[in-house]
């Protein structure tokens, strides 16, 4: 039997107030894709950061080729052949794609000059392999999030890696790019690289991985062969119970039209958009990245001025000039980019959650802190947010728990129209189904819900109707009865799909 390329033994890592890792062990074989799974905040990213030299473990050791090593910093980790593709984008936006891919190891000529010829030719080769639509000299800041993620992934191909860590690489990718990513992974695999793959998406896990290691609350739960297990068993290991995946079929009565959009256009971003959402209805918006869904949501939230068209709330035409206008009219938006748009990372959990209503929670001239804590506690329990307390800085929460804070923030506004943009990005299966259930419940209580998602199962699962978009236009609207995966894919690719009323 071959030796593992990489072995972690009894790793313990604590942060003030949190025991993030509690004696975790893991081994990765050459040519193996090893899945690391667990709920939000289970410690997956932390474990990988220990491996990548970003955090130092309090206890335990790391072995490469069965020899103990110390990862004193990212530099050492990289030198030892460990490539880390981060969960959060880690790019320099003003630099070119090529410079970002080779960040920290630009090819050199004499006197420290950059060898541009080599840099660009190497990058072009990688980009070709990845089959992306941008060039080596493109400025990274001008790329969409998905393409930025591809740049990040391209880094895995620059060095002769012994092990590559992918921390939720697909969270912001669409299907086309996923295919490319999986090709990349299988190439790496063939050349004997050990791969750690973190994801909350079961179908991916079962498609590409060989073994699965599960963490729960920082503790090692066990490792299983992918072939010998199934979703249900893994889920049980992760969350300690079974998951009810059945669709909430309660068919409540639909109310009046809460939100109506007529002929809305905004420059080149989208054109002639018309739809309506009734109280009690969940409308899913599905499309490829760049289809313009986020921009519609932003317009509805007063963040963009439409160039044409009308927005009607409860039958009354409104002008929304700012988010505070929109909020005053009962619209909530869970934005797509939680770090950039959703959270003030340096603020504590409670203050983040109550931010939009801080003007209303008053005791005399002061903020009513008691009421705030009550709101926080309510949604912490409802959404199962893992944090040592409301005083914790949001920036110290795991990615998924951060997302839950954003969702809680907007649910607590008790909106009449709730818009959620990629609501479950980076959220674990357990919580995901909780959120889906919640969205359905909210609708049942009479909210109008607009769900933007790039995950087909999600859209199919929660929506009463699905709007398919392609390049700034609505191609077709499906009801949940008539929709099929194939017709949906056709509609969002711009093929056929005559525009339905």
């Amino acid at each position, binding site marked *: 039997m071959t030796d593992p390329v990489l072995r972690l033994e009894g790793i313990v890592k604590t942060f003030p107030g949190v025991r993030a890792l509690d004696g975790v062990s893991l081994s990765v074989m050459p040519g193996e894709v090893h899945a690391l799974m667990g709920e939000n905040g289970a410690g997956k990213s932390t474990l990988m950061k220990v491996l990548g030299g970003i955090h130092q473990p309090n206890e335990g050791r790391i072995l490469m080729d069965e020899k103990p090593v110390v990862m004193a910093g*990212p530099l050492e980790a990289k030198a030892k052949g460990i490539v880390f593709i981060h969960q959060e984008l880690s790019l320099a936006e003003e630099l070119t794609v090529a410079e970002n891919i080779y960040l920290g190891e630009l090819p050199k000529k004499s006197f420290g000059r950059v060898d541009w010829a080599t840099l660009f030719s190497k990058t072009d080769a990688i980009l070709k392999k990845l089959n992306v639509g941008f060039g080596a000299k493109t400025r990274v800041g001008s790329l969409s999030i998905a393409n930025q993620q591809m740049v990040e992934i391209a880094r895995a191909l620059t060095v002769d890696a012994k092990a590559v860590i992918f921390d939720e690489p697909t969270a912001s990718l669409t299907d086309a790019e996923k295919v490319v990513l999986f090709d990349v992974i299988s190439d790496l695999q063939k050349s004997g690289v050990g791969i750690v793959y973190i994801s909350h998406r079961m179908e991916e896990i079962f498609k590409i991985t060989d073994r699965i290691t599960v963490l729960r609350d920082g503790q090692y739960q066990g490792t299983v062969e992918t072939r010998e297990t199934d979703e249900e068993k893994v889920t049980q290991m992760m969350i300690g119970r079974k998951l009810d995946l059945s669709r909430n079929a309660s068919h409540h009565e639909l109310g009046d039209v809460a939100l109506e959009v007529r002929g809305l256009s905004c420059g080149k971003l989208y054109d002639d958009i018309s739809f309506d959402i009734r109280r009690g209805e969940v409308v899913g918006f599905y499309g490829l990245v760049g289809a313009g869904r986020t921009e519609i949501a932003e317009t509805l939230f007063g963040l963009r001025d439409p160039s044409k068209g009308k927005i009607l709330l409860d039958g009354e035409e409104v002008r929304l000039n700012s988010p505070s206008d929109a909020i005053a009219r009962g619209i909530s938006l869970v934005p797509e980019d939680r770090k*950039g748009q959703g959270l003030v990372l340096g603020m504590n959990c409670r203050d983040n959650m109550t931010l939009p209503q801080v003007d209303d929670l008053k005791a005399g001239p002061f903020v009513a802190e008691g009421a705030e804590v009550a709101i926080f506690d309510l949604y912490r329990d409802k959404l199962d947010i893992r944090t040592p307390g409301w005083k914790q800085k949001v920036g110290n929460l795991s990615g998924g728990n951060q997302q839950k804070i954003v969702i809680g923030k907007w649910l607590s506004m008790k909106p009449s129209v709730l818009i959620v943009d990629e609501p479950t990005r980076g959220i674990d299966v357990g919580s995901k189904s909780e959120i889906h259930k919640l969205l359905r419940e909210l609708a049942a209580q009479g909210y109008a819900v607009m769900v933007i998602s790039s995950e087909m199962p999600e859209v199919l699962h929660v929506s009463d109707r699905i709007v398919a978009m392609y390049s700034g236009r609505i191609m077709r609207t499906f009801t949940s009865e008539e929709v099929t995966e194939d017709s949906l894919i056709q509609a969002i690719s711009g093929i056929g799909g005559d525009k339905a009323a």
Partner: protein
Amino acid sequence: MATLTKQKIGSVLAKQGILVAFALFIIAFTFANPKFLSVDNLFSVIRSSAILGIMALGVTFVVISGNLDLSVGSMMSFSTIVVLDLHDKIGPFLAIPAMFAMTLCLGAFIGFLVGYLKLNSLIVTLGMLSAIHGLTLTYSGGKNMDIADKEGTWFSVFGQGTALGIPVPILIFLGLAAVLGLVLARTPFGRKVYAVGGNGTAATFSGIRRARTVFLCYVMSSACVAVAGLIQASRSLGSQNTVGQGLELEVLAAVILGGASLMGGSGTIFKTVIGVLILGFIQNGLLLLGLQFYVQFVVTWVIIILAVWLDIAAKRGKLWSPIA
């Protein structure tokens, strides 16, 4: 158990590193010159720190909201000159509100540029530093401004009076610090200031009117400057056009020494007060030791860096920076 107390001490240090540093300086100076801790001297230091301190209170808001204000020094000169000039022309009762109105207009102008037009605050306030200086010179014709009847005016009360045995500037400073401290820590407005400075985009997405918040911070800052100008004018009942020159950097140093981050989103009024007092006591302490002013420069340098270093080292639990 032992580790627990150690941890506790560690976390106290981490939270109040700057206070600990402050205490150390005081002890050291007192050993060097026992007069340092005399009531007279304490009052004298706090009183002369009051003007700088009041400006620092306003600038704390601006800095937490993620911006800078380099115009406070020259704005303070402006307020001082204006109130002195108007004192003799329309009497102190009208002069004070008129001066406040004019100063607030300047603050509102800056707030408009930085908040609503979203211009870079460093350059805007740098430009205003120069422009307001020009304005002051135009207003005064470049002359010193003096009150004619220095003995007879009640106007001197703000700078020279005492109440309950405490000099009025100290009372104003501490009173204002308490009020603004509450505003920042406890009111919705304060919360918004932190949010806007911490992540302006996210604040906007949360329905906070970022432009208005920034605007109000500058207006607050200019109100503080007006108070400082009032005390300054009342203290000496006469002034030259450059009375506030150079104070902007001292004010900023005090705010930063107090631990506010220039990136915005963090800092407190209490800490700013500590920062102001540290600067004041350093200057005074060194003066009492009879050191040449240039030695004071060098010592202040070392102390500023040591204090801030100690503060952040305690927070991260490591002396040396993790930067590779």
